[in-house]
């Protein structure tokens, strides 16, 4: 087979086949296009202000490493004037973070960015190892995720930074959309599609500039740019990817690569139906779609990500799916649905859509205030972290969020 030529420059050998449009590109053109698209996302959603201080939630993993690399490149190329800082969370899992923190330290040198590491022990008085000692391995991802979410905010606050960017990619968003669809939680589904979470009342704004970037392309970008990143599974969640929504996403991608961005866009469309606001596909108006309950969004789950999709909840959902033996049927249905036309909009409008504040669990009191325990901003009287800590401190394990 003669090697295919790059569709862009038509001179170099094509090495990449883009999942979103099947375009065949050479290495250099791919890297340029990838960066240009992130730049477009940043500009169209007005993500940054000139001179803004921005903390990059850095785990040493592929997503946050690519994010740091791309932001550095774009910041210099397009004169964003950003002051970029790497912010890492140490969950206190012996042996697990050692290598990834070493990676982040190297990244700090490679990208010439200051690095701040915040530990769970100093923030909460508990390392994850101690949490697991107390409650066992079941459900610990929930704790880890809730703690991590606040840890990024608190670390940013410590540094006097009001904007944290995370490496969430299109696959992450698609996965969250699917999970919330399966749970029937359209309110949370719509919030999860927003590129920016938090609103004017929150002290720290969070955003995901790689929201439209395929995980596949992130890995290929890291590979072709020879970026220094670290991969590991969280030792407390060895099952994290088995039979999961993630697995389903990857299978869909195999059958039809555009499925991932189609799910993201479907999520945005549903968000518009739920909230009556647009989160258009280039996120131009996406900022305001976060509801008041944004604190519960996007809770970082297990794995080595900073603030990735809800691992604990996902694992629970997976388990439920397996128990119901419904997994296969769902996959078949979804794959079938993907290959046919989208569900008519008439039907979507007939759905009993819950209010943007309503969630299917817990009290729906969503007035943004401050946690009575720690003073940290919270939509509940007692913030999630303090609730979990209370349970931990009472040596009680059965807290469900």
């Amino acid at each position, binding site marked *: 087979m003669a090697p295919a030529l790059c569709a862009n420059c038509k001179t170099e050998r094509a090495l990449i086949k883009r999942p979103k449009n099947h375009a065949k590109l050479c290495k250099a053109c791919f890297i340029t296009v990838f960066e240009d698209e992130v730049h477009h996302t940043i500009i169209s959603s007005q993500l940054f202000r000139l001179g803004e201080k921005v903390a990059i939630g850095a785990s040493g*993993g592929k997503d946050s490493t690519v994010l740091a690399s791309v932001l550095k490149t774009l910041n210099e190329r397009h004169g964003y004037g950003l002051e970029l800082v790497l912010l890492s969370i140490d969950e206190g899992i012996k042996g697990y973070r050692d290598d990834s923190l070493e990676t982040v330290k190297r990244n700090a040198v490679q990208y010439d960015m200051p690095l701040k590491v915040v530990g769970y022990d100093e923030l909460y008085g508990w390392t994850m190892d101690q949490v697991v000692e107390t409650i066992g391995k079941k459900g610990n991802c929930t704790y880890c995720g809730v703690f991590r979410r606040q840890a990024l905010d608190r670390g940013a606050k410590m540094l006097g930074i009001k904007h944290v960017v995370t*490496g969430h990619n299109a696959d992450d968003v698609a996965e969250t959309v699917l999970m919330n669809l399966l749970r029937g939680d359209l309110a949370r589904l719509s919030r999860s599609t927003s590129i920016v979470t938090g609103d004017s009342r929150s002290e720290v704004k969070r955003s995901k500039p790689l929201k439209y970037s395929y995980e596949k392309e992130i890995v290929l970008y890291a590979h072709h740019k020879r970026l220094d990143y670290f991969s590991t599974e969280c030792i407390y969640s060895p099952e994290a990817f088995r039979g999961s929504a993630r697995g389903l996403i990857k299978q869909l991608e195999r059958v039809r690569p555009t499925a991932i961005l189609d799910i993201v866009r479907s999520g945005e469309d549903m968000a518009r139906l739920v909230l009556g606001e647009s989160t258009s596909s280039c996120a131009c108006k996406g900022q305001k779609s976060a509801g008041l309950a944004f604190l519960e969004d996007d809770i970082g789950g297990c794995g080595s*990500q900073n603030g990735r999709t809800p691992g604990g909840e996902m694992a629970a959902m997976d388990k439920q799916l397996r128990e119901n033996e419904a997994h296969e049927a769902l996959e078949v249905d979804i794959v079938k649905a993907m290959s046919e036309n989208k569900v008519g909009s008439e039907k979507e409008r007939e759905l009993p859509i819950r209010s943007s504040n309503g969630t299917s669990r817990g009290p729906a009191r969503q007035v943004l205030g401050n946690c009575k325990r720690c003073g940290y901003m919270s939509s509940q009287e007692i913030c999630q972290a303090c609730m979990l800590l209370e349970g931990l401190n009472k040596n009680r394990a059965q807290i469900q969020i």
Partner: protein
Amino acid sequence: MADTSETTTIPITVDFSGGLEMLFDSKRRHSISLPATDGSGKPANIAFLIDHLCRNLMKDPRAELFVLDNHIRPGILVLINDADWELEGEEAYEIQPRDNILFVSTLHGG
């Protein structure tokens, strides 16, 4: 060629990254000699290589982290001499001497 096909091998390098190293002796690069033909005498292709790796190189019992239903697990990228295997015929690509095949997982932490 017919007489020696059973013993003829192709020298190639196989790389694992993105967490897959764990399944293969925690080593990123392996230089291997791949039988030039499969059991039925057909030239060795990627499908044969994957099977070969599972049988001969994998040190970890969790084969399902690498293959599912006899195919490479979705979410694992395959690069043939740095090119996406989708550009090269995927499983049907016939392996050439000194090829470099990279398996990189997208499934591990970001």
